[in-house]
């Protein structure tokens, strides 16, 4: 099904700019086909809703990449992402065999869909851990990540020296890394090429 109100380009732009009205249109135009697919392949309504959110997150990452070009219709692309992510989910649940999923021809979507989805999950988790830090730690780390100079950060934060600011940054980062390590299940992490870092 295609959106009758918006073109594919408008829908993609609306996604990147986080336009609530456009996001609603994704649900109106595309959710039902994803739902039907999930329901006919061992899933339920809640699975369909969760999957559709993951699909939109992946599409958001793809669409804001300046090198991304849509080579088919948006509905085909969304459906393909849904299939790939649902197959991954079924694999995770183990009690369902891949073979039980009906196979039909669909576009060969990029093989990095699963990696993007897994990375999204990690980034969201890290962000939540970051938001649990003290407000000063959050501010120092954000300023560093925004490329603000160390001298300016020292002034803005009212620290006594540049060295103190640096130490503060490393301490905050260490706290964050330790809290993530304590809570995140690293057995599920997949980085793709192991030799990269």
């Amino acid at each position, binding site marked *: 099904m295609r959106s009758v109100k918006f073109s594919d380009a408008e829908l993609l732009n609306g996604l990147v700019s986080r336009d609530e009205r456009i996001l609603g249109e994704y649900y109106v135009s595309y959710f039902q086909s994803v739902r039907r697919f999930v329901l006919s392949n061992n899933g339920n309504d809640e699975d369909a809703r969760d999957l*559709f959110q993951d699909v939109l997150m992946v599409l958001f990452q793809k669409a804001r990449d300046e090198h991304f070009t849509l080579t088919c219709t948006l509905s085909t692309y969304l459906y393909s992402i849904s299939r790939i992510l649902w197959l991954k989910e079924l694999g995770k649940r183990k009690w369902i065999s891949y073979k039980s999923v009906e196979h039909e021809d669909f576009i060969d979507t990029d093989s990095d869909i699963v990696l993007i989805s897994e990375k999204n999950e990690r*980034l*969201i988790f890290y962000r939540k851990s*970051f938001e649990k830090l003290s407000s000063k730690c959050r501010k120092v780390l954000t300023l560093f990540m925004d490329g603000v100079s160390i001298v300016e950060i020292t002034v803005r934060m009212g620290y006594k020296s540049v060295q103190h600011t640096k130490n503060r940054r490393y301490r905050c980062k260490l706290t964050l890394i330790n809290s993530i390590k304590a809570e995140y299940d690293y057995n599920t992490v997949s*980085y793709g090429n192991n*030799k990269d870092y």
Partner: protein
Amino acid sequence: METTRIIEQYLDGTLGDEEKRVLEERAALDKDFRELIRLHKEVNLSIRDKDLSAFQTLIKKVSANHFHTPKLFSLKYCLRLTAILVIIAGAGVILKYSLFRCVGAEELYQQYYTFYDADVVSRSAQTVKDALDSALISYSSKDYAEALKILNIIIKRDQENFLAWFYRGLTCLETNATAEAIQSFNTIPISWNSPFKEHRDWYLALALLHHGETAEAAKAFNRINDAEGYYAGRANKILQKLKP
């Protein structure tokens, strides 16, 4: 903190040549170290990228709106409105009840809470039975993490396996995940026709007490007392002590 400094400087591109060489040599040989660098890199990305998190929040909002759009003056909407008004009216009673009771709720909970001994399970589907039995064995041997894992799988497959929801509530209660325990018990419908129902009612009431929802707990104990079942005597005693 030294490792953090080195990795951060490496990622910033401000690490000196010698330290950079040492880091890269170590990363080539040490998988854990490589993963730590990746973790730092992704964490930095998550700090820099506020949009992804904001996007997820927005999707959740849009999804909630799409699936739960209230229709003005519909029966469902009116019922919700009534429920909200009842909750607001009850809030005053709850506040009064929580502030002026005689014995502390937690004290009562500690006094009356006992570990629920797992029962023998009988279900028609063999695989479900096996999984539930495994969960009960883990629960009985106090391996709550494993029990919870299996119960979650069962529930994921069959949302209406209320016995699994019941044991999930008990498992959460044992691990002090009280809010989750309440949610699990509450998933079971009032109409549940099972010998476990009165146990579920009792442990739900205790969970509410443990969670500090004293007024709700009192209502639940009242229902147990009125039903004159197995736990009625204990519920009555708790109610006496809870009275202001």
